[in-house]
């Protein structure tokens, strides 16, 4: 029935190309040619004969009771096929990643600005827009609960979720909390051991993932009463797990296929349009496509938690840390999303990559009537890093020490315990990474006689010719975990098939991994080449016909699904060799696959893969489970909670126009241990991209929320870095293998997003002498007009 459901065959054409590049090489992306020709099918490009367009009516109020919803005028509009509210939902009305506390469509009340209340299917997006406008909703508008003070006093200000409907692990308006005590904790006796104490309150604004490909997908009703959903997501199986119960159908009748994904960065971890498109398709019996416009995208996904933090550090006169204390308050907004896991990260990683004998920490996520917050690259470690790294600079200044030397003096390394008690059991070259960025030559100073004004703060606006420009340099280092933590088994599945096609051995790799741009499919093909000694590898479209690959998040996909591909390929290799033993009676124990041949390392080629396989295909599926972790103790935060740690250090050089408060980052250097770079080109791309999102948080990116209302839901008003804002980003990679990880690799995507922001702010601080306890740094913070 599908006439032009594009994802699938077409995206495979160029993935069949041959290459000799196994792991450690940088073969080109298999989808690159389609992407540069404009032929790669993104989720928003999908088209189906007879398809309808879906659209949601969203609340203009952050907190209100819904007194009535009148759809009668909307339904009458020609071209409108369905208008649905929560009353029309056939199954469960709630969903959620960790806690099912979010209604698929609002029930009697709205809890945030932009919450979906009703959905429309129509024959043209403009018809759908007009129908949405004709839905009449009567609200009783309530005062939103938006500040920490309001959230923590529900008796006075109210409950975001009333106690009888509260589903999270917390209480009142606290969604989740985690405490941690290490060593002697922080007591008066411990404090007395410190010669020097620095403290501060720090604030991080709400950052958006701002992926370019808007939320979109196509739901196609199937003849068996089920549904086929083509969608851009980060985790097909967890989408299915959340959507099927709402549709009232068994999971196996909901089949998901990954459509082309235009970036993700955490913003596609939660559902957006999936349930709505499926409900409309189920009701109308027609395919339904939903594509968010940019403003709707800002309302349609969760953001990075804004944070308010208190940090206090005590040290000896010679710079040794004695204790650290912190409280991190994260605003989780209306629904839980990933807040519990974000809190776990903030608490366990929130004192940074430092050896601190005595630690106390409390991290909490609030429920509020602000936009929901959840996963974004860096996931709970970003906010804290701004806090502890600012503290390190303060402490260095207080002690009269070099800020890099102070960090190195206290840097953790392999064998040291985290504040959770977990001993770091693989390389942790924190001091070395700092040394690498420090040792890089600095960019040349501003040459006032030879200026291109486009390179100055203000750039094309031509706001300075060198006057009022001050340069600064700053350093930072950060820590991030890899993989899902706290006892979660986020396994991955891979299917590898080896057969002869056109006289050549060809491997096919089938996983449900969401390729969101990171290049996971390139790496899968490299792994298959290395393990099976073949040149041609086909990547099967990602779908739910194969087991879960877990989420494309937490820097985990190469580790987890790459690992699954490795194990499935090894199983195929073993089966092939076993076939040869049975047929030829081989007794050698040194048999490998290389260059299309089965080879005894000592004795040379035994047989070609083609001859050994013949008409048979070997098709095996394997799961990859990482070593188990445990939940953190609720009160002490102790436990082997994380799978792997990753570290990045940065040096930022900035020019600041102190008259106008404009900042130009001149250079942003990164050094990161990647364990083993399976694809160096992609790894560097991840580090540079991660640094750039950190630059955005440092100097421009913030969703402005006032009284619960989003004020800048557009790329006109929410600024992300352009090519003029981003400087050269030299990258140094260390490759120190982690013995616990496949190929010794270390997840790379997030560490630079954690670590780079504080280096930029430190550089601005050095240039201006202004304290800067809040990010993003705005011009008014620098000119003193705030």
């Amino acid at each position, binding site marked *: 029935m599908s006439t032009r459901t594009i994802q699938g065959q077409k995206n495979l054409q160029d993935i069949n190309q041959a290459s000799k590049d196994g792991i450690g090489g940088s073969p080109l992306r298999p989808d690159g040619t389609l992407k540069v020709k404009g032929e790669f099918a993104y989720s928003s490009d999908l088209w189906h004969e007879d398809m309808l367009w879906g659209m949601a009516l969203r609340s203009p109020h952050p907190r209100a009771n819904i007194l009535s919803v009148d759809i009668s005028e909307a339904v009458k509009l020609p071209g409108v096929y369905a208008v649905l509210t929560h009353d029309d939902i056939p199954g469960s009305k709630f969903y959620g990643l960790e806690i099912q506390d979010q209604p698929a469509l609002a029930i009697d009340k709205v809890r945030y600005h932009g919450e979906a209340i009703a959905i429309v299917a129509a024959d043209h997006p*403009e018809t759908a827009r007009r129908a949405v406008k004709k839905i009449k909703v009567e609200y009783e508008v309530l005062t939103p609960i938006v500040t920490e003070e309001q959230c923590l006093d529900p008796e006075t200000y109210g409950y975001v979720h009333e106690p009888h409907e509260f589903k999270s692990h917390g209480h009142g308006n606290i969604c989740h909390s985690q405490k941690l005590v290490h060593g002697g904790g922080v007591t008066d006796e411990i404090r007395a051991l410190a010669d020097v104490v620095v403290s501060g309150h720090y604030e991080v604004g709400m950052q958006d993932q701002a*992926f370019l490909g808007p939320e979109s997908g196509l739901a196609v009703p199937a003849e068996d009463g089920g549904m086929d959903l083509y969608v851009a997501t980060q985790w097909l199986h967890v989408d299915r797990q959340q959507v099927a119960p709402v549709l009232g159908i068994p999971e196996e009748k909901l089949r998901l296929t990954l459509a082309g994904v*235009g970036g993700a960065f955490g913003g596609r971890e939660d559902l957006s349009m999936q349930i709505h498109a499926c409900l409309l398709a189920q009701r109308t019996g027609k395919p339904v496509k939903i*594509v968010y416009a940019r403003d709707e995208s800002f309302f349609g996904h969760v953001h990075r938690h804004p944070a308010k933090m208190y940090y206090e550090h005590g040290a000896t006169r010679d710079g040794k840390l004695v204790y650290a204390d912190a409280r991190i308050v994260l605003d989780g907004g209306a629904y839980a999303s990933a807040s519990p896991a974000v809190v776990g990260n903030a608490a366990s990683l929130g004192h940074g990559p430092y050896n601190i004998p005595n630690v106390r920490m409390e991290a909490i996520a609030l429920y509020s009537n602000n936009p929901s917050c959840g996963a974004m690259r860096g996931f709970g470690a970003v906010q804290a890093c701004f806090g502890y790294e600012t503290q390190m600079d303060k402490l260095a200044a207080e002690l009269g020490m070099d800020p890099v030397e102070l960090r190195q003096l206290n840097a953790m390394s392999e064998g040291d315990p985290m504040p959770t008690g977990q001993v770091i059991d693989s390389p942790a070259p924190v001091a070395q990474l700092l040394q690498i960025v420090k040792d890089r030559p600095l960019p040349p100073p501003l040459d006032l006689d030879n200026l291109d004004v486009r390179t100055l703060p203000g750039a094309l606006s031509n706001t300075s010719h060198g006057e009022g420009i001050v340069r600064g340099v700053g350093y930072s280092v950060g820590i991030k975990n890899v993989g899902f933590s706290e006892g979660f088994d986020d396994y991955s599945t891979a299917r590898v098939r080896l057969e002869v096609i056109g006289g050549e051995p060809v491997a096919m790799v089938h996983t449900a991994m969401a390729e969101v741009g*990171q290049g996971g499919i390139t790496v899968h093909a490299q792994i298959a080449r290395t393990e099976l000694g073949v040149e041609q590898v086909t990547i099967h479209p990602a779908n739910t016909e194969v087991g879960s690959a877990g989420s494309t998040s937490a820097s985990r996909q190469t580790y987890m699904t790459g690992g699954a591909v490795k194990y499935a390929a090894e199983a195929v290799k073993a089966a092939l060799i076993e076939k040869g033993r049975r047929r030829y009676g081989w007794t050698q124990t040194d048999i490998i696959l290389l260059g299309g041949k089965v080879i005894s390392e000592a004795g040379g080629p035994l047989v070609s893969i083609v001859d050994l396989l013949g008409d048979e295909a070997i098709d095996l599926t394997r799961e990859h489970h990482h070593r188990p972790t445990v939940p953190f103790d609720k009160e002490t935060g102790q436990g082997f909670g994380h799978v792997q740690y990753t570290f990045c250090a940065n040096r930022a050089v900035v020019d600041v126009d102190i008259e106008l408060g404009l900042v130009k980052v001149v250079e942003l250097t990164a050094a990161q241990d990647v364990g083993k770079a399976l694809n160096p080109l992609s790894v560097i*791309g991840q580090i540079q*991209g991660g640094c750039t999102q950190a630059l955005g948080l440092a100097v421009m990116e913030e969703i402005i929320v006032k009284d619960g209302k989003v004020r800048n839901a557009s790329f006109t008003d929410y600024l992300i870095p352009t090519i003029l804002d981003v400087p050269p980003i030299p990258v140094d990679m260390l490759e120190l293998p982690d013995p616990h990880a496949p190929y010794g690799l270390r997840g790379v995507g997030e560490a630079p997003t954690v670590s780079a922001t504080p280096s930029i702010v430190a550089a601005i601080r050095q240039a201006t002498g202004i304290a800067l306890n809040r990010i993003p740094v705005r011009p008014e913070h620098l000119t003193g007009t705030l």
Partner: protein
Amino acid sequence: MRVTFTANGKPVEADDVWEGESLLYVLRERVGLPGSKNACEQGECGSCTVYLDGTPVCSCLVAAGQVQGREVRTVEGLADESGLDPVQQAFIDAGAVQCGFCTPGLLVQTHDLLDRQPQPSDTDIREALSGNLCRCTGYEKIMDAVRLASARKCEKAGASE
């Protein structure tokens, strides 16, 4: 209304076009050219950049009716029978494509830049591409790609002289 124009050298005709539709919508939804991308639809991101009578424009900001009788060239029209345009090849080779959603607009804008200015300085490149947002790469590989395309095009031009 009916809109007729030339897309990548071929005459196209779109029927039942609503007056509020953009050129981007007509390309993507009516004439089967979804290569130009819909990232912001308000002229901020550059993902929908196409040539209109030889000048790069944000196709989301051009009303469909405005292209009546005119020539449009999209990312789908950059390659020819002999293969990819050097700009396209350079983006692949340099690792400038990650998710690729910004790529079509960047390709058209870069194609135009190198036509006007075969050997741009880094700052020229940054100025020319400052209207094209990319969220994945940090732009470093995009800089590499433009430098590479420039070098290859100049080499080719030198060889053919």
